[in-house]
């Protein structure tokens, strides 16, 4: 780069500060990503299982749910491009674990269970994670939590339900519907208000 280019670049950036604030803050906010297309890692059964599991964790209410937010599609992208093989395999195993428990308790795959059956399965698994979390407190865990089949998970993050919940949370609350509709995330608060009462107009 020569001096002339350097000056032009700096001059261009200096001009920015003359733009109106509303124009300035739009810089860089344009859509950058293409829509999700096909699943790369999960097969049809796996992706359906993940979709239904995520929807059970974060269902559609008066705001969009995990399915609306394309959580399964996002997680497939992360499995394909982001996770290391161990993490990916553990998450796929978590999906299998849902089916295994569904078969044991209800004689069906997870996606063939009805709503109350899915909730019952998750209530059991959630309680297992809760026990691990309390064991994960200030003192190192001195007991392993075993599932009904005697499988042991030494820490909460290794529990299949913890992993499913983690990716449901990340996939949903970083999505556009999750951020803009459920969280009503404000990209430009515009001021710092150190103390305010929740629910009162700010």
């Amino acid at each position, binding site marked *: *780069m020569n*001096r002339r*280019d*350097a*000056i032009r*670049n*700096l001059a261009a*950036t*200096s001009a*920015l*500060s003359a733009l109106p*604030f509303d124009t*300035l*803050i*739009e*810089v*860089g*906010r344009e859509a*950058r*990503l293409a829509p999700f297309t096909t699943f790369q890692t999960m097969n049809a059964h796996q992706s359906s299982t993940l979709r239904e599991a995520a929807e059970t*964790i*974060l*269902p559609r*209410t008066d705001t969009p749910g995990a399915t609306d937010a394309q959580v399964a599609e996002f997680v497939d992208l*992360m499995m394909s*491009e*982001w996770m*290391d093989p161990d993490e990916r395999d553990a998450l796929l195993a978590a999906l299998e674990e849902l089916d295994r428990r569904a078969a044991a308790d209800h004689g069906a795959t997870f996606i063939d269970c009805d709503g109350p059956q899915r909730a019952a399965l998750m209530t059991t698994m*959630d309680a297992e*994670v*809760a026990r691990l*979390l309390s064991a994960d407190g200030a003192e190192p865990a001195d007991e392993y939590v075993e599932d009904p089949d005697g499988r042991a998970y030494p820490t*909460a993050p290794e529990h299949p339900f*913890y992993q499913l*919940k*983690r990716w449901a*949370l990340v*996939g949903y*609350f*970083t*999505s*556009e519907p999750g*951020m803009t509709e*459920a*969280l009503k*995330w404000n*990209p*430009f*608060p*515009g*001021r*710092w*208000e*150190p*103390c*305010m*009462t*929740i*629910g009162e107009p*700010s």
Partner: protein
Amino acid sequence: MISRRPERQSGGARKIYDAIVIGTGITGGWAAKELTEAGLDTLVLEAGPMIVPERDYVEHVPPYQQRYRGLGDQRQAGSRQKVQSRCYACDEGGNKFFVDDVENPYTTPDDKPFDWIRGRQVGGKSIMWARQSYRLSDLDFGAPERDGEGIDWPVRYADMAPWYDYVESFAGISGQNEGLSQLPDGQFLPAMPLNCVEEHAGAAIRQQWPDRVMTPGRTAVLTQGHKGRAACHYCGPCHRGCITRSYFSSLNATLPVAEATGNMTLRPNSVVRQVNWADGKATGVTVIDRESHEVIEFRGRVVILGASTLESTRILLNSANSEFTNGMANSSDALGRYLMDHTMSVGAAGSFDGWEDQTYFGRRPNGAYIARFRNVTDTHPDFIRGYGYQGSAYRPDWNRGNSEPGFGVDFKDDMTRPGAWRMSIGAWGECLPYADNRATIDPDVVDAWGIPALRIAMNWSDNELIMQKDAAEQAAEMMEAAGAKNIAMQTVGTPPGLCIHEMGTSRMGRDSRTSVLNGFNQTWDVPNLFVIDGGAMTTSACQNPSLTYMAFTARACDHIVGRLKRFEL
């Protein structure tokens, strides 16, 4: 004003600049501003590429417009930014502001990990810095004289106070005056007030320990319009740039002023290979073009290194010649030694019952600060010097969901609301200067431009580690006094380097036998060669150091301009 000299003819046309500034970060940007405003024809060299805010800043890209939602490309990081990605700011939006570790290697002994975090672009690390800005005091400048550890600073607070005033007034620092001798007041814009739990905790702590003062963080973020730059709009991720120029960086503040003078020639992509020398003086620098690898020589009457502590030291070590066989301006053998960083990350966190109906609005790029209280008026039996805390109280967002039971409709609704209050504080501790904490040239490793790389050997010693233990315990005690529940102590700190406050490897002093620089950042050995970055620090103190680098740079530039006017350089 200094008259421009006509270009000298030597073989071909070869211009001699009044000054060559190496680096465009916090200190290089300040030097560019100060020297060009004084009328010096100044060449500013930057190893990395140009940054154009409207193209390169990414603070307003929402997570759902980032491929990995802000979690970063960890496979790319694993292969190209294994070290850099240990810094929180090297994230999916901001990782382009950190170097490629493969192009920029360095080595360490196996038992002495050191995380060297670097930014190579116009603006340097001033783009991603954490902006906390605190003055040093005579508790710091007088420390070696008082306790005998290290060499005496060649300055005292009275020398620096006007320069702190000067740089604060331009940069725009928000903060609150507290009248503390160990953390001097400044020229502050309005503070970002503490939230209700911080206010409560600060009052409770002070009630139990009257000398422990919590104050809003002093930060280089504008709380009102300032010198043509807009007030902060509290969007959050400052480390990815700021299109409204609301925080201080070279790109947002100093370089545009330098450019407007017409006296700056800014050359990005200029990797400095060495400082050249003849007849007792620096004559200029040799540069390797980052892209073409062309070797280019530039000449100047004064050479000013602001390439970052370890990069400037590396340039000097790589500038050894027949006169300076162990590195330029290194007759003291202090160059590369006395490497310091701040200890970081020990502290405590806890949850608070109450204030359920209270929250805050805006993503404050700042927090609370607890000023140093150890070895201020009393003497601790186990360690010298001290530490300060940074921290904040907050209501966790949906990220807490994995540590709370539940799923389904109620759980989802709960995750859209703020969680129970938590507060966390962590200590930044002073590190003493040790001759063996040292950077040298690794004879076996070169970077992508064939320039010999550094070997960095540093570890914490007893004073740092004993101090950290105290800092963790005191943090827990203070959280307890504030009424926190479920208090967890963090007792393991980060390895050296990760605080990114590396400093001291070309320290200033009163004696040319034990220091590289005099009190004006001028090398003892080469009168027209200066180092203005953190390399100059004689001690580390415990305050975030960038504001002090700014003050020293402005003061050094004033000295340079005066000496040039009197033809003394």
